[in-house]
């Protein structure tokens, strides 16, 4: 509950933050974005506005360098009215920010060994560092940035000589208006925009989630926690059951003395509900501690200037959820009591089987409760229903699997396939009345599955994206190399770089269907309307292989009127096309219709470059193009080379593959840490269930153990028996859970992440060993308990 409360508080805080800072995050009341310079008509209209009400904001990546150091930065060139909303918080915040000086993020200072007042070069211009940026109003999260932030005056931009050469500049205009003027101005500007690439939005229309990733991540964590809550619900059920079982005699006496069963149930209800209430208070304290002392852990996904509190609403929500949940669980469990006849309990010749029917209505109620909880988190009926149905199907699978397993055992027992009588007896005990083996197996399996899926996914992502930076892969990437710079660049770096020609183009249509129409039909793998990089070559890259082709072994085939095209398999899947289908491109105004003559596959994922579209050389050789280059440079040389290149060719952006991978890993590690915390929580819930379900069945188990002792079973045999029973129960459950986890994560990682599943055998082995150890420890404890208790005292008390 504490975890849920914490996350809910975080989310509430984030929501509040967004509400308050809506305009600040967006930057203005009206925002226009484009990836090229804005057309003249629009510019002239905007220029008529009050300059204090308009911010021009250009962003692009470039290398900042000093005499012997360099760093990839994300430049933001703004006009003087910046920021329209909110405040740019600087470290010293003193004197006026002058021309020819820049504001930089702390990372720039530390990486380049600079302090405020020093100079650095960007492109062809030298800048003085005016101050250090603490927070930017329109960039609440810094963890997701690609390149360290440098803010310069827009008027300095021309002197850097970078814009124009750059192919990747984001142009942005932010406008501040009064509420009345907003709509007319918006309409007027919209009318001026003919190019469909230009986006115009009001602050209200803009996507203000501080970042999709952090929002999704919070929801993901909460779903995880809901899973934990659902598990604990089952845990509570077993606890209540165990508790009631222990008190059966007392209850029977109370009932025999004339107390009404409903009064007994009432007394339990009060007891458990007060316990639940106390737990929520404790949870509140715990989450307060987390929020005060653990804020660091969430830094990756939260704005640094956010104020974290536990809103009253979250607290009430937590109380209501836990009370309802406990109430339901108690009700379901206690329904049995109402039907217990005291005679049946007090006279042991009848096993006190509650005759109550399964409380379907109440189970349905809890199911709906969980559904509502999921819905309240993700706010999409369809998605929550999907999740819910998926859960239901999974549960049914488990139940079915468990049943089949039990039938198999029963069948083996009936057919006398097992000859060792102790094993037979242990297996028979699994069918003991009241011990809910099926429930036990299902819940343990579910827990294993949740944990297993997380571990497996985590492992696959880790293995394939982050840890394994292949030895022979290039680790140095150069963007925006001009064709005529190639030779000089080779000389500078003292090695022959690998160059890839890049022609920028858009997709016009696929098999004659316009992209605008296609957009609604295709998946979310990519955005078909974006700018794509085409390349040309006459042979396969060494990192790729042919999947299928019209002419065997050839990238291209003779296609008559159309141009041959080789497509990457993952993109072919996204476009839902195959050989012989056509794709029409708009290459800087010229339309080219291409026919797919081959489909390529990448041998493995990794940092090596790849292109979705490859044409024969003669088709694109004359088109306006730039080069993308890769090299392998030793760790010690990379920074020096980056600096060299930045000095000589300011227009070229270099990406240091090694350090990017490292940064990415740090970021993923932070997220992983959070997931692990919550995973640990669910492990805890799983253990709780494991132990309570053993306890709740221990009355029957104990009784039989004492019978065995009474008839002369020695403790060694009793231990064997217990161990076989616990081990088979636990390992069945674990096995089923692990199996489903593997399936599930294989599906998820293939479909969502496009990764192959890597089974972490070490984790599987270690966790099975842990489970086995745990079962052995429980068996030992149990056995010692039986050994130390006096048989007669137990039998006499019966």
């Amino acid at each position, binding site marked *: 509950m504490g975890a849920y409360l914490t996350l809910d508080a975080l989310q509430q805080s984030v929501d509040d933050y967004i509400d308050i800072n809506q305009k600040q995050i967006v930057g203005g009341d009206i925002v226009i974005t484009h990836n090229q310079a804005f057309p003249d008509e629009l510019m002239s209209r905007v220029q008529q506005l009050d300059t204090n009400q308009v911010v021009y904001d250009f962003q692009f990546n470039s290398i900042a360098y000093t005499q012997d150091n360099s760093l990839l930065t994300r430049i933001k060139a703004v006009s003087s009215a910046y920021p329209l909303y909110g405040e740019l918080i600087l470290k010293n915040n003193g004197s006026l920010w002058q021309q020819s000086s820049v504001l930089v993020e702390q990372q720039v200072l530390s990486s380049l060994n600079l302090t405020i007042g020093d100079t650095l070069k960007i492109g062809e211009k030298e800048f003085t560092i005016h101050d250090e940026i603490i927070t930017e109003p329109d960039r609440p999260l810094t963890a997701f940035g690609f390149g360290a932030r440098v803010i310069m005056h827009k008027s300095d931009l021309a002197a850097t000589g970078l814009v124009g050469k750059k192919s990747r500049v984001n142009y942005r205009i932010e406008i501040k208006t009064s509420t009345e003027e907003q709509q007319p101005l918006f309409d007027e500007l919209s009318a001026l925009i003919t190019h469909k690439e230009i986006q115009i939005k009001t602050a209200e229309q803009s996507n203000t989630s501080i970042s999709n990733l952090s929002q999704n991540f919070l929801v993901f964590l909460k779903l995880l926690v809901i899973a934990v809550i659902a598990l604990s619900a089952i845990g509570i059920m077993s606890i209540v059951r165990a508790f009631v079982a222990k008190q059966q005699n007392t209850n029977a006496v109370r009932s025999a003395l004339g107390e009404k069963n409903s009064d007994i149930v009432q007394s339990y209800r009060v007891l458990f509900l007060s316990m639940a209430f106390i737990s929520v208070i404790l949870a509140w304290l715990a989450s307060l501690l987390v929020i005060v002392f653990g804020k660091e852990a969430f830094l990756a996904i939260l704005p640094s200037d956010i104020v974290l509190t536990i809103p009253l609403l979250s607290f009430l929500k937590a109380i209501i959820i836990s009370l309802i949940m406990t109430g339901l669980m108690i009700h379901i469990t206690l329904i049995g009591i109402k039907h217990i006849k005291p005679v049946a309990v007090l006279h*042991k010749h009848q096993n006190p089987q509650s005759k109550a029917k399964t409380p379907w209505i109440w189970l349905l109620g809890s199911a709906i409760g969980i559904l509502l909880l999921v819905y309240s988190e993700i706010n999409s009926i369809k998605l929550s229903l999907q999740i819910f149905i998926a859960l239901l199907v999974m549960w049914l699978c488990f139940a079915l699997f468990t049943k089949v397993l039990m039938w198999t055992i029963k069948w083996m027992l009936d057919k006398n396939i097992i000859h060792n009588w102790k094993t037979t007896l242990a297996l028979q005990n699994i069918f003991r009345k009241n011990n809910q083996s099926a429930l036990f197996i299902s819940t343990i399996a579910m827990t294993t599955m949740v944990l297993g899926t997380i571990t497996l996914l985590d492992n696959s992502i880790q293995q394939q994206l982050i840890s394994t930076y292949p030895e022979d892969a290039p680790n140095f990437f150069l963007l925006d190399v001009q064709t005529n710079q190639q030779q000089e660049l080779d000389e500078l770096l003292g090695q022959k770089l690998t160059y890839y020609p890049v022609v920028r183009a858009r997709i016009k249509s696929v098999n004659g269907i316009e992209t605008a129409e296609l957009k609604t039909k295709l998946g979310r793998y990519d955005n078909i309307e974006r700018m794509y990089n085409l390349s040309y070559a006459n042979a396969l890259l060494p990192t790729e292989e042919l999947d299928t082709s019209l002419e065997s072994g050839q990238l291209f085939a003779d296609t008559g009127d159309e141009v041959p095209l080789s497509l990457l398999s993952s993109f072919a899947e996204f476009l839902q096309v195959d050989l012989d289908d056509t794709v029409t491109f708009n290459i800087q105004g010229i339309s080219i219709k291409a026919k797919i003559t081959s489909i390529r596959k990448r041998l493995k994922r990794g940092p090596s470059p790849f292109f979705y579209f490859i044409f024969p050389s003669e088709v694109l050789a004359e088109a306006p193009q730039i080069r993308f280059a890769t090299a392998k440079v030793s760790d010690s040389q990379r920074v020096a080379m980056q600096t060299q290149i930045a000095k000589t060719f300011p227009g070229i952006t270099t990406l240091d593959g090694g350090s990017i991978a490292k940064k990415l890993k740090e970021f993923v590690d932070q997220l992983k840490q959070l997931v692990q915390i919550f995973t640990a929580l669910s492990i805890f819930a799983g253990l709780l269930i494991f132990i309570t379900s053993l306890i709740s069945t221990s009355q029957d188990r104990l009784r039989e153990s004492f019978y065995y002792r009474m008839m002369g079973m*020695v403790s060694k045999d009793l231990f064997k028996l217990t161990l076989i029973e616990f081990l088979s129960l636990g390992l069945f459950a674990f096995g089923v859970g692990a199996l489903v986890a593997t399936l599930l994560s294989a599906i998820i990682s293939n479909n969502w992440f496009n990764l192959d599943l890597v089974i972490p055998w070490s984790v599987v082995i270690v966790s099975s060993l842990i489970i086995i150890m745990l079962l052995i420890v429980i068996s030992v404890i149990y056995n010692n308990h039986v050994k130390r208790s006096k048989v007669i005292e137990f039998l006499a008390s019966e």
Partner: protein
Amino acid sequence: MTSLLKANNLSKSYALENQTINVLKDISLSIKAAEFVAIMGKSGSGKSTLISILAGLDTTDFGQVFLDDKELTCLTEDELAVIRQTDISFVFQSFHLIPTLTVAENIGFPLKLSGSFSDEKVNSLLQKVELSHRKNSFPHQLSGGEKQRTAIARALITQPKILFADEPTGNLDEKNAQSIMQLLIDLQQEFKTALVVVTHDDSIAQLADRTIRIINGKIA
């Protein structure tokens, strides 16, 4: 005839919060092989405690119990368990059958423990207690009388030297009680087993070779 079971100066007390209850006070007795002894006394007089100690299921504070010159009171739990496999059996008022096992399996269970299982032995006992037709039933499907007959068969299948029965008919109606007692006595004579029965029923006591009366923890 020499004695099969001998108890010397048994004492047992329970310490409650602020008082000590002396349940058994210096009890000595002996039981011969194949003898039928009834133990009578008021409720709470210490009968159950006494036979539990005699059977090695409970410990004494003071005194010894010997079975065939073997001192039970100084054996470990496991050593006592092994003796229960072959020499000592117990029948309780509330049956204590294993609910997951059928009648036949319940009866055969002690044989499995001692590693001397055979279907013939089980079937012959099933016949003797007239339960052949219920051999595949589970305990919860049986009447009280049938349950107790199963328990008796289970207790006697190892042909123990001595069988203890603590109010074996306490949960049964009169008619069933009589037939159960008759069965116990018949089998006891057939197997030459010593039988110690705790009972409130004078008519049962009259069938016994000897009756021991316990009053306030002492033999009267």
